[in-house]
């Protein structure tokens, strides 16, 4: 088992953990954090997979992707936090209303 593959596995693990947290936690901040963890997992996979087989030079493209991804993730997190704060201000608690259809 090569190192990059290990990293990739860990990344996938993070993704799965994040997903789990996203689903089970009600508080929005936890959910947002969980999403960030998932994001990190994906980025980790990307970075790890930049190492091609054999002695080929490192591929720059995934890194570029990761940078872009981080930018996106930051803005998304910012938006999410703002929304959460607004929701908190309106409803008094930072959780999703449970009734889905009304």
């Amino acid at each position, binding site marked *: 088992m090569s190192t990059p593959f290990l990293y990739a596995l860990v990344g996938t693990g993070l993704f799965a953990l994040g997903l789990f947290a996203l689903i089970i936690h009600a508080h*929005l901040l936890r959910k947002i954090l969980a999403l960030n963890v*998932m994001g990190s997992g994906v980025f980790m996979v990307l970075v790890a997979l930049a190492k091609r087989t054999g002695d080929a030079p490192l591929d720059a493209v995934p890194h570029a992707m990761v940078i872009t991804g981080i930018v996106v993730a930051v803005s998304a997190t910012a938006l999410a936090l703002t929304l959460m704060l607004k929701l908190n201000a309106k409803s008094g608690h930072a959780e999703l209303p449970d009734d889905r259809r009304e």
Partner: protein
Amino acid sequence: MGAVFTEFPWGVILILLPVTGGMLCFLWPQIAKITGLFIVFAVALLVVGLAWQIFDNGVYRHAVGGWGAPLGVDLYADGLSLLMLAITALVGIGISVYSATYFKHEQAVLFWPLWLFLLAALNALFLSADIFNIYVTFELMGLAAVALVALAGSREALGAAMRYLLAALLGSLAYLLGVALLYHGFGTVDIALLAERAEPSPIIWAALGLMGAGLLLKTALFPLHFWLPPAHASAPTPVSALLSALVVKASFYILLRLWLEIFGPLVGGAGVEQLLGLLGAAAILWGSVQALRQTRLKLLIAYSTVAQVGYLFLAFPLVAATGVSAWSAVTYLVLSHALAKAAMFMAAGNLLCFGGHDRIADLDRVVQRLPLTAGAFALAGVSIMGLPPSGGFIGKWLLLEAALMQGRWDLVVVMILGGLLAAGYIFKVLGYAFTQADVSHESKAVPASMEWAALLLAVAAILLGFLAVPVLSLVSIGDPFGIGEVRP
């Protein structure tokens, strides 16, 4: 003259113009409305230019800044992309005209930049040639859409926006993981190159699973539709229209592209398409029944979207033998649903604005006092029900043809049932246009532009029923479905 048209980088401008416009609106809110409207109309003209170019030169490919793949960004447009761009521009105009009088003060200041960003993201998405670019534009679109939903500011809207955001992020992360796997497997993110290099492997399956799940979540295919009704129902009207008409279609477009170019040829026949068809059928039935049960108009329309999305997926199991009609059907359904659903949401918005509520049972005093709006709702309804003459009918006809050619009676029954249920919920609303209720109701005048925007979009959905031949020949430019070009 001709050369200017054919060489001009229409695609790049199509993305840059709205972005710039969004910036301008953001910086100078007082001119936001004018700028916004101007930009939207300009985008429509640009799409026409691009269409001209594609007609003359065939498929459009442009390496931005001359970099080219793999590091640079490629723009690509064939018939399918062009059509998506065109419908975006068209619905965009309607929404902009509507919004120009709908949003006031604070909301207007926020709406225009967000909407122009969203427009830019959509255009970029439809022009993207690689899957990573798609991710970026997809995310941008999602964020803008979430912000737009939150614009209403109410508790429900914020909650719905939050839910939508979580779903969107989850979806795009899954998609991104899929991108990573594909890149690892085949060393490229360019769709065309991937199509050449890809071969059946576990990576393909894993990527399909991840990307598919992500995209289905954002397309709101049953049972992953949970976020859609609240978001669409509680957003401001133009935003609901936008989300139902365009944003949902964008993620479907990606799914369609990936399936056509990469996954379809590799995993076809392994049951995936059957699964999608099954989910589509379930969506039709579930969505329609739910729509029928709703007591509020916007929720009804939102559930109708859930059902209509189902129709798009019915095509997947039908492609195998017939080719042409199934995909043409999908194209047509996408187009007509975009127009009709936008019109429908706008009509609902007018009723809401006029009467101050959207409880269906109390609509009787409202509907008959807004004949144009009622007309818009009815015409849009005709297309949604798939009754002739309308775009929806053409789509349904093609889909039925495909289903019958393969003897898929189960799907036929689902389609017919879906149509009947649709008629049920549409006429549930329309019936209130014909009551004797006296007009003792507090009301707020609805600006004419809002009524006409809805009506014209609905009329466009009807007229689409007569344009099948040119539209289908347009969409076959560059042979996106791999079945040869359709001759008019």
